[in-house]
């Protein structure tokens, strides 16, 4: 369970990204964070895997205040979270396989197990024919799917996705969200930041609407 109490984030120059956020996401829940550009969706997601520190408030993840995590504990938190970044964060000059396998390699998983899991997820995301292709030779949509594959390959208990369908067509978007839904049914907590109203309407999940760094409805 994720609980946020009076969380604020102010960047240098007194730029307020989030103000007094209070929310609860239960384990196994599927939540959309919706809002226009600059509403604070990305910042909110980044706080949840400690890519950013909150300026005020508490973020409790499974009973632990992540603001108080020691530096050595942060990697353990991040291994529990699969993150799909808006800018993909892929190693451009490496192959699709290397990028997707990266998370598993960091965990020291056996190489044949890595191969099995990477193939499985690439197949689900229709990327198996691109396995040896370098990422910088893929289209935006393909790169986005590689980023999703990397986030899912570890079967994390929680997935945070920042605009995961921003570069793919409607059919592929539905494919990706069906995959998220399938994972959610097996108990994975999914939090998706999106401005895409069609997707939100299609899936009818809990929506947290942000505007200028504040929750305007939940």
């Amino acid at each position, binding site marked *: 369970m994720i609980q946020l109490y009076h969380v604020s984030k102010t960047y240098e120059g007194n730029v307020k990204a989030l103000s007094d956020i209070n929310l609860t996401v239960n384990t196994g829940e599927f939540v959309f964070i919706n809002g226009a550009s600059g509403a604070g969706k990305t910042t909110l997601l980044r706080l949840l895997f400690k890519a950013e520190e909150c300026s005020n408030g508490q973020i409790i993840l499974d009973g632990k205040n992540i603001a108080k995590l020691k*530096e*050595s504990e942060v*990697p353990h938190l*991040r291994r529990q979270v699969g993150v799909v970044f808006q800018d993909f964060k892929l190693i451009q000059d490496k192959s699709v396989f290397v990028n997707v396998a990266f998370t598993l390699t960091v965990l*020291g998983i056996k*190489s044949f197990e890595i191969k099995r899991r990477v193939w499985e997820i690439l197949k689900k995301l229709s990327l198996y024919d691109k396995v040896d292709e370098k990422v910088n030779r893929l289209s935006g949509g393909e790169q986005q799917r590689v980023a999703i594959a990397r986030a899912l390959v570890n079967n994390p208990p929680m997935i945070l996705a920042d605009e995961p369908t921003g570069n793919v067509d409607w059919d592929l978007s539905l494919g990706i969200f069906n995959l998220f839904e399938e994972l959610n049914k097996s108990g994975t907590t999914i939090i998706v930041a999106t401005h895409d109203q069609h997707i939100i309407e299609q899936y009818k999940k809990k929506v947290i609407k942000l505007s200028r760094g504040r929750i305007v409805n939940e």
Partner: protein
Amino acid sequence: MNKLYQILYIFKTLLTNIKENYSYFLLTTTTIILTIYMLGLFWLLFENIHSVIDRDHPQKNMSALIKSDVAADAIEKAIATVRKLDEVEEVRSVSKDRAREEFVVHTPQFKKLLRGLSINPFPASLDIVLAKPLERKALKELSRQIKNVGIFEEVMYEGVFLAKYMALIRTIEYVGFLFIAILFIAVIFVVSNTIKLTLYKRKNEIEIMYLVGASRPFIKIPLYIEGCIQSILGALVAIGFLFASYALIIMRLKSIFLFDLFHTSFSFLSFHKIVFLFFLALVIGITSTTLSVNRFLQISR
């Protein structure tokens, strides 16, 4: 088992890094080679100079060089005076021509050079054999007494030349070590910046490693191992070059008279000193890696 696969990954990453950034790897290793080579050469030189200066085994021979244009009877008188000294057992007069002949016998390679000279540059001298071997302090006192006789330009015995320039040698030594210390700091600066360049090249990859849950040691260990490999490789090559230089210098010295002048055998650096050079190379590698990695990881976290 997980650890084993992580170790395998670390070594795989290390090899990839070296392969992808081989120019930086070579630059860093070459810098370490040059530093260790210069330090080793300096150390080798001064260790051998000290082995000559500090050697104080008793000696039985001296040579008193006679000033030019001294009359024959004055020389005879001086020989008699020197013979009367308690420490002296035997005195043999060596004329200018005899000195030249003896030099040619000992160093035939200079025969042609001497033939070209219109004058004989060698002074007449007295070869003095002492009654019993004397140590450097007693030799110095005796040489002072002999010089007081009045016709002698210089009194020579083993080590007198180097002992005379001891202060100068010590100054050069201190300046040299100061220079090496400055060089050492400069090298750490250069090497750490070179490592930083390779890190900037991998900035994106390191950031992603963090974001997917890699621990700091997991990211840092390959970088440290790379630093250690560069250090050990640098020290190995530098010591190899050092030994080659040493062998070459000894070969050259043996072919000229200087080698006989010192009446000594030169030696290469001891095992302990070689180990110390390896240690210094590791200090350069590890300190530079620490400086660059800590600063860089602070930024890209």
